[in-house]
């Protein structure tokens, strides 16, 4: 099977980005803002409970938020 046939066979399933280009800034900004707020909350109370309840989500939000934000500013990673 030539790769052109693979391309033709896949015509019904074009790539769909997780977040469209137009929404990347909004999504990235929101996630990063939440990450900053959660980081602040963790800074106020650095207990293990706070690490698990606030630090962990803050890290997750920062991870995804920064990926969307760097895409939104034109560095497509």
């Amino acid at each position, binding site marked *: 099977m*030539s*790769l*052109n046939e*693979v*391309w033709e*066979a*896949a*015509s019904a*399933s*074009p*790539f*769909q*980005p*997780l*977040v*469209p*280009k137009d929404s*990347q800034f909004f999504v990235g900004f929101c996630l990063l803002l939440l990450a900053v707020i959660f980081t602040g909350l*963790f800074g106020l109370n*650095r*207990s*293990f409970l706070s*690490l698990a309840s606030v*630090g*962990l989500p*803050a*890290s*997750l939000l*920062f*991870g*995804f938020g*920064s*990926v*969307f934000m*760097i*895409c939104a500013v*034109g*560095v*497509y*990673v």
Partner: protein
Amino acid sequence: MRFFTATVLGLLTSSLAAATNLTSPSRLALPADFKPQQVFKNTNLVRNTNLEKGYVRETINVVVENIDKQAQTDYYIPFPSDVFERVGGFEVRDKKATDKGRFVVDATEAVSTSGNQYFIVHLPEPLAPKSQITLGISYSVLNSLSPRPATIGQSDKQYLHYAFSAYVPSAYQTITQKTKVKFPSTDVPDYTTTSDLKSGADPERKGATYTYGPYDTAKVVPGTEYPIAVRYEFTNPVVTVHLLERDLEVSHWGGNLATEDRYWLRNNGSELTSQFSRVDWTFANYQRAPTSAVREITYPLKPGSVDPYFIDDIGNVSTSRYRPGNGKTAGNLELKPRYPIFGGWNYSFKVGWNNDLAAFLRETAKPDSWVLKVPFIQGPKASEGVQYERVVVRVVLPEGAHNVRFQTAEGSSSNGLPGANQIHASLSSFKTFMDTLGRTTLTLEVDGLTDEARDAELIVTYDYTLMDALRKPLTLFGGLLSVFIALWAISNIDVSIKKR
């Protein structure tokens, strides 16, 4: 973290090793006294030489007959070594069944006694004794046109000189042959007239087409030359791209295909006799008079192309205009170089733009497997043509992509590219923003292309799983979480001064 890095590094190493169908052009070595066996006869041969562009485009249609007692598969096409290196986009098809695709062609090293190099055409089915096949051979010869006079005034007409043999170089006996030369205009001040090759006028002229022959060459030894030279008007730039580097960056997270083309351009036309005059140039420009300089470059872009830029060694060049298409039609990027590029002058620049990835990427039936279809080169569209001495195309796939395969799309007519075995392909890793391991990069290198290859398309398939995609956010997640854990641990250390 180290375990994580080691694991993904291991995955990548195996993935690079597992990548298939990578090619590296090799040339067959032949014995010093090699001569192809006389197993074929060219019954009739017609060569069309097109000089309308800044390079030579030749198509040869030849009826080949097997005169041996056994079936034959290999047909040799000779070129002198210095010409061989400048032949680009060499392709052979069965003229009567062009939709069956191109034949496999191998290149050889030079044979020391004759100085010839050969293309060996492998016929898909052995040609039985006494049977015939019509071959359609097409190729371009780069850098074979020389300006005469070599220096001209700024507003003068430019003339090019082209030398070739009236007898088409062939390894086999040819019964009849003729050559049709197509000029860009009827202004052909000098051309060789032959006296003893055929009865009647030779060449026969019809508008801008000159026909040498037909000649009865049954008794002419293969390899005999009869030099012909023509000189014709070509008041257009001879645009030569010394090197084109093209980057295509695929981003699944951003849903974007970023393209950047970097050009090292030269005009191979007549040089200026005297110093450049800005006044004369402005005057000629105002009249839109034909010129041997590159005045403007029109660069068609695919529908949906956005964020174009045009930068040279100094910085942003503001004399450009982008006319975006209306969503379905192609856009045009109109570039005016910082200065007109006269004969012998160089200009290097880069252009880039973005596209939505959805138009170029599809998910195949196999889970986590993707197929990408992108133009091999895009480049300027100009009536005078563009020749590319060397093209390096880099497809930067997302980090973690593996099992990479590629192919160029083939149609019923020439796509301007050489055969797959003449394209040098390699895989490497390219590290840039937010990368832990580097992105899988497919690099394709081709020598000797022309703007005929503008319509050629490259198809790449690769595997890219959810875990590969999550590598970036999870790395950042791990980094920040480590900071939080460190903060928590440090804040729990009791540093108070008290009695324990």
